[in-house]
């Protein structure tokens, strides 16, 4: 038993170091692995939206949360996984179709500007926290405190039936 003690200590030490370096997922990370959270500015008067309502927001068909609070759409730049999930599940469009959709939307004068592009989850959450009425889509494991995470079809990220993953 005495000979096994150093080996035991080695594995314990390795586990502790691994935890410190983030090699092992936390419980929260594991629960939300791959889920894309819908984050909004805390002032947004909504807590739970259906997937169809989220789609109307992303399509630019709904442009106001309330009459004095316009929606500001923040979307990740191409290649980001969050953008892929949003295009596949919500827009149901390819990258080319997405670009053509917004060019046409502005050209038809249905909106004045298209979505604003953000280049990281940190940039997305930072802007959502500072722009009233803003909405974005970020990795659920990277949502900082202070932002509102919306339920989609009654489910939060990490729940089995959550649709955005």
């Amino acid at each position: 038993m005495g000979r096994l003690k150093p080996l035991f200590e080695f594995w314990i030490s390795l586990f502790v170091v691994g935890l410190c370096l983030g090699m092992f997922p936390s419980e929260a990370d594991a629960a939300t692995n791959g889920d894309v959270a819908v984050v909004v500015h805390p002032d947004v008067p909504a807590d739970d939206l259906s997937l169809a309502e989220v789609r109307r927001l992303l399509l630019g068909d709904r442009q106001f949360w309330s009459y004095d609070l316009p929606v500001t759409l923040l979307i990740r730049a191409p290649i980001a996984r969050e953008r892929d999930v949003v295009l596949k599940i919500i827009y149901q469009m390819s990258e080319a179709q997405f670009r053509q959709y917004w060019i046409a939307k502005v050209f038809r004068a249905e909106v004045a500007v298209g979505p604003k592009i953000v280049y990281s989850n940190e940039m997305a959450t930072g802007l959502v926290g500072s722009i009233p009425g803003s909405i974005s889509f970020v990795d659920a494991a990277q949502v900082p405190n202070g932002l509102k995470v919306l339920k989609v079809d009654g489910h939060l990220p990490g729940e089995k039936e959550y649709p955005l993953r």
Partner: protein
Amino acid sequence: MKRCGKQVCVLLLILSLTICIQDIHSASAYIGDRTWPQVSEYPSLHIIGFGDFNYSDTDARGYKSGFKEGQFVLHFTSALSPKVNFYGEVSLTARADAGTAGKGLQTGESVPPAPGFNPEVERGFIRFDQSDYFKVSFGRFHTPINWWNTAFHHGLWLQTSIGRPEMVQFGGMFIPVHFVGGLVEGALPTHGLNVNYNVGVGNGRGSVVSRAGDAGDNNNDRAWLINLFTKPDHFFGLQVGGSLYRDRITLAPKEFDEWIAAGHIVWQKENPELIAEYANVNHHELGSSSSSNSPAYYIQAAYRLPWFEALWKPYYRFEYIRIPRTEVVFKGSDFDRTSSIVGLRYDITQFAAIKAEYRNQHRPDQPRVNGYSLQTSFTF
């Protein structure tokens, strides 16, 4: 009844303006309280452009094949405040009579040579967005009684086919393509049906029937329109709608009442893409029992092939327009026809496409015409 209609129109406009002014003030207060981060960016002008080049040939007698420069189109969007925006669309179209001098119609004096391109303000309007339910705009629009007319405007790159259906052809007269006046529009969720509406009052057709009354109406009867369409949540991509348009046309010394009823059903996804529109134009000559109905429709189907990086999109369109011999307003027009179009679109990049099209067309009392066209269209 006529006076009552005018009063209702004027009241609607005054009401809209009043609500606009009230909300512009409240929007300003909102900006002040919340220090909206974009406030320093007003006015914020953005420009996008569209262009196209074409080659066409037919076996029609006397037709000269060759290349043709398409329209050079610029679209302007300028946010003037969080709730007030200006939209404009300007086109430059090559003129067949470029460089030739002519005689003034009235005076007979020589007039300067025609320029190479014809500039046109296709759209230009200011819109106040009170909410999703209520938006008011004033200016020159593409008349929202036809889906194609307001879906693609002058951006040929946006549409699958090379040209527009004949019933909404620019410079054509079947449907009034442009509308000068005021529009109220909005969208209501209504349990997932997403009902959208447009209600408008404007000048209607001018003395030249294909043109809107840009410099003023040529009579004291305003045109009005109602357009309703739904985009249901449960059928994402589907749009179904209908519209009604009423105008009085003055072609001195005669006057005509015009009623246009139109409907559309559109599946906007690309696998497949389906567009079908129908319109009936009724003209009734005042002081006469003479009345005529001119029906038109088209059906277009396309499918973006999943192979070869989804760059190829074959399409087919059938068009039908029938103008009765008793029709007076459209007299002399040449759009009475049936035609079939088969084409293929190839997207060179995400912002440019090449299209090839074969057309077979038949007009009453004339031989069938076959033609083909090539086009490259793009946005920039």
